[in-house]
């Protein structure tokens, strides 16, 4: 599988925020998730990846090319959905399709209007009368309708109701599985996106704190639920975080294989249990941690 996006040491400084040394490699046909709290730099990163803002330092190769020399060609093949989509408020939804269509080599108008129907967005409505979620859906429809090989989506599920969120996740999973499309998606809440991401990057304060395959993370990271005192201090010390309550303790470990021997007795006697940790749990431990 070839590398569709290769970013090395991307750095960008603003007055009050800096993105520092972010590297990312995305394989064709995969779904890459970028997660992190607010102001972690996810949007800045995605804007650089989508050619929306220049890259002052670091290298970026997308779909075998670069924005310096092939901006038009790349943008033809990339579908970008910003965190806050911008439209001409006084114009209608279908005006925007008519506006954008001539620029895209592989524009599929029929597909666009089918999507609008599925998303229940009225093509004749002026954008100023759309809700935030509907604007997101319009942006998604535009991104999906020109045969893009790479989708770069910034919080695509934000503002969507449960039905649309689920159908979007299913659609992304299906398109990536077909190998036709690669998806890079950013979110600050892992609402469903953690379930479809294959590779995960955690950003915090402009830097990468963790980068791994999702399956690998789910295997290595577990909750150990145990009775207070059932595990000895040395093992507890190795947990990423420990929470003590009246009804037991919860420890988060990133090396369940390494501590398995140490916790075996407690497991056998029922004084300890292993439970799976979600990507959200893992991300939270990084946010709360040092």
């Amino acid at each position, binding site marked *: 599988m070839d590398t569709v996006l290769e970013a090395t040491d991307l750095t960008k400084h603003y007055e009050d925020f800096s993105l520092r040394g972010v590297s990312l490699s995305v394989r064709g046909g995969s779904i890459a998730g970028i997660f992190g709290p607010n102001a972690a730099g996810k949007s800045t990163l995605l804007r650089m990846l989508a050619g*929306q803002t*220049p890259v002052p330092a670091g290298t970026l190769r997308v779909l075998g090319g670069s924005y310096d020399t092939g901006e*038009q060609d*790349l*943008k033809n093949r990339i579908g970008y959905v910003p965190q806050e989509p*911008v439209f001409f408020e006084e114009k209608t939804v279908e005006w925007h399709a008519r506006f954008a269509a001539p620029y*895209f080599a592989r524009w599929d108008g029929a597909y666009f209007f089918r999507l609008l129907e599925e998303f229940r967005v009225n093509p004749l409505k002026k954008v100023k009368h759309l809700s935030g979620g509907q604007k997101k859906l319009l942006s998604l429809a535009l991104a999906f309708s020109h045969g893009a090989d790479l989708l770069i989506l910034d919080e695509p599920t934000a503002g969507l109701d449960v039905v649309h969120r689920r159908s979007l996740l299913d659609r992304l999973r299906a398109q990536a599985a077909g190998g036709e499309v690669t998806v890079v998606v950013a979110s600050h809440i892992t609402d469903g996106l953690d379930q479809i991401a294959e590779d995960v990057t955690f950003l915090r304060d402009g830097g990468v704190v963790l980068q791994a395959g999702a399956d690998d993370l789910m295997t290595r990271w577990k909750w150990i639920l145990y009775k207070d005192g059932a595990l000895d201090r040395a093992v507890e010390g190795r947990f990423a975080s420990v929470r003590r309550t009246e009804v037991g303790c919860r420890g988060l470990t990133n090396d369940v294989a390494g501590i398995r021997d140490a916790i075996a007795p407690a497991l056998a006697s029922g004084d300890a249990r292993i439970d799976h940790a979600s990507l959200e749990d893992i991300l939270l431990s990084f946010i709360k941690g040092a």
Partner: protein
Amino acid sequence: MNPILRRSSFFYVTSAITYLAIMGRYLVTRDWTAFEIIPLFMPIWLVSALLASEDGERYAFLRTLPVPDSAVARLKFSLILLSTLFQWTLMTVVAAARMGEGIAGPATMVYLTGICSFGLLAAAAFQIAIWRHGVSRMKPIMIGAIIAGIALAILHLASLRHVQDWPAFSQVGLVEWLGGAPWISIAMLVAIALLAFRAVTRFGIRVKAASEAHL
């Protein structure tokens, strides 16, 4: 037609049409002060068209389209240039037509060219400022400049009418002197203006590419 061009040019075209309507009126005028005042309104018209056009622009949306940013910048500069050329040509033709009747003189045409050059570069500068700082921040400044321009023009007209010996722009020393060899002077002014404009264009394209404020 290119949708971006079509949308961007709307206010320039409407401004050109109103300008045409007003200039058309002065083709039949006997009043030579018209040639003093009308050119002063050229930069005002142009900057107003620029402001109206940019106020409704959504660069963030345009940037998601497969159009190089430099192409969008060049298009905007082209509109400014074409607008200027249109107004300059119009005024020069009218002035040349009236020259035989003594309403306009050679110096008038030099003055026209000078003012249009100023308008061209002022509009280009404002365009770049909008990219650098965003239209909402530039709006009050531009409106202020437009009002100041209108005020100055009215002041100049009133002074011409009521103040003894108030100098007309087309009679100011330098302009009068250049009027001695009008076509050479005009060619020179045009060349300088276009060269300056080209440099400003190149600078402006870089500013737009690096700016987030206008998105």
